[in-house]
């Protein structure tokens, strides 16, 4: 939460100085991300494109027909990816808020250890962990299932979410909650009207991380999903392996699209004053 606006001039000045900067930043991100995909776009429409030619010699819609056609795996994989990434994101937010609050706001014994344990999944190779988890999941019937995949995605996602929320709460003034309570707000009202608006930029930033990490997860999905849960990255890999460049390119675009869309939608939380609140510093 912003404690006191750092300077009043910000609000009195016309907003445009701010928003030009923001759109430049967004523009740079979009161009930087999209330019490498121009070849992909061309590939996805190509039918024949051999080495010396600058452009495909024959064009076709085959790849895109496959992606959006009936009874193909592409749309199903898109659906799986979306459901899994959304569920993972929501769960990680539910974990990240209380955990980040504890880490960012309170001093307690063993805090260093807890912080280490939370960071551990980013250091330990996920494969090592996933093998163990697989055995446990088989026992509880979670292997080869969508909930199992969601749970295993939490391993790489949660550390980021918790760290973002911890830095949000490190800049948060819990006295606002006390103020709300003395004004008669019940606990859920305090959370809804005071805490949530204050940490919202952080939730967006953390959620963006969470969604993209889960969206692009390959190895853990493969292991725990056991070939039953086919997400976009899995499909993409199998086409890449088969050497069908057009379909691989089309799938890549479908794969990258939502991530870029998310980034654009949340850009206002990634730049300017909100960024500091979101815990990633000013861009």
């Amino acid at each position, binding site marked *: 939460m912003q404690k006191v606006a750092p300077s*009043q001039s910000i*609000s009195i000045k016309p907003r445009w100085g701010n928003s030009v900067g923001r759109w430049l930043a967004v523009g740079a991100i979009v161009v930087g991300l999209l330019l490498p995909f121009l070849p992909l776009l061309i590939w996805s429409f190509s039918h024949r494109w051999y080495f010396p030619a600058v452009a495909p010699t024959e064009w076709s819609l085959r790849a895109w027909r496959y992606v959006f056609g009936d009874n193909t795996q592409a749309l199903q994989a898109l659906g799986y990816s979306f459901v899994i990434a959304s569920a993972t994101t929501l769960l990680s937010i539910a974990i990240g808020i209380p955990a980040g609050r504890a880490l960012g706001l309170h001093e307690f014994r063993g805090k260093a250890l807890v912080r280490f344990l939370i960071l551990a999944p980013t250091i330990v190779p996920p494969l090592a962990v996933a093998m163990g988890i697989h055995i446990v999941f088989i026992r509880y019937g979670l292997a080869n299932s969508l909930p199992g995949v969601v749970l295993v995605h939490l391993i790489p996602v949660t550390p980021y979410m918790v760290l973002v929320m911890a830095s949000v709460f490190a800049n948060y003034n819990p*006295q606002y909650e006390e103020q709300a309570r003395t004004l*008669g707000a019940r606990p859920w009202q305090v959370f809804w009207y005071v805490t949530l*608006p204050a940490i919202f930029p952080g939730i967006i930033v953390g959620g963006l991380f969470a969604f993209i990490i889960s969206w692009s997860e390959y190895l853990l999905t493969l292991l725990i999903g056991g070939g039953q849960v086919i997400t976009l990255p899995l499909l993409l890999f199998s086409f890449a392996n088969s050497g069908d460049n057009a379909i691989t390119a089309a799938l890549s675009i479908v794969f990258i699209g939502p991530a870029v869309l998310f980034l654009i939608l949340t850009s206002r939380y990634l730049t300017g004053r909100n960024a500091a609140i979101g815990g990633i510093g000013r861009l």
Partner: protein
Amino acid sequence: MTQVDLQKLTKIYPGSDSPAVHALSLTMPSGRITALLGPSGCGKTTALKMIAGLITPSEGNILFDGDSIVGVPTEKREVVMAFQNHLLFPHMSVSQNVGFGLKMRGLDRHTIQRRVSEMLDLVRLPGLDDRRPHQLSGGQQQRVALARALIVEPRVLLLDEPLSNLDAHLRGEMRELIHDVQQQFKLTTIFVTHDQEEAVVLADQIALLFEGQLHQYGPPQAFYERPLNERVARFFGGINFIPGYKRGSVIETGLGQLQCYSAALSDGAVVVTIRPENVAIGRNGSEINVAHGRVESSTYLGTHARFKVSVQAGNGHPPLVLEVVADASSIHLYPVGQTVKLYLPPEKIWLVPAED
């Protein structure tokens, strides 16, 4: 109208060995302003937060009109606390801030709107409804915070240093506003300050705390005229303290024998105190309670002049320095180095216990 009773209220923060508030017992009369006064860190905010229910007391009880409220959660106590740093919700407009308490109570939008604009008129901020807190000046923010507290018509209003973030001019304005509003609503108000002047001007009763302990509780005059100990007297600007030995109405001191009418203490070692403005300088006529000294320094204060006068003490006592506040014009009458006669009127002399 609610009378607040604190009974042996104590708070020991975890991990700290000395209590932040220690066995505080006070009865704060209904519809009056009580000041909790004391230096930084003496436990004022802690006491206030216990009354608000934001901190659980380690021991003791809090009664509102005779009923204990210790088990009642903050939001049901009908106690509003305005914090030291106003804490306006930054994501809400002024009117949303002011209307917050009513919204939490589920009132409808039109009623809230009407009450909010009444309240903004009352705190003399009409027409600022749509501003954001960061678009307001410090004084305006403080007044919005006050409006936000008053709108819910609390049983008890708690103000934590309501004037501390304001400059001298705004402070006076805000002080008046608090006074007017309190008179109008007859709210039981408890306010915290470290500034004795503020407490004296605003409060009906003052509770003076040092290190979590109550040292004196009473109306403002008592702290000037009848301080209970040297520390209290010093906090209220007392500066002349002369050790002595009391026998009846006569006190043996380094200045010789002093007559006094104060009978608060029994015979034995005492400390004589007299406020600098009560010492008469250069006056002829009186025979008793007179001392002769040399002006060591003088300071011109515009409306007053302040002198330091050293008095040769008899009977092997070390020399004493008395401070005297007199008329501004007297600055010319008593230049540094001059020998002057000081008169300590018996009715102005007060005794506090000797500390060892």
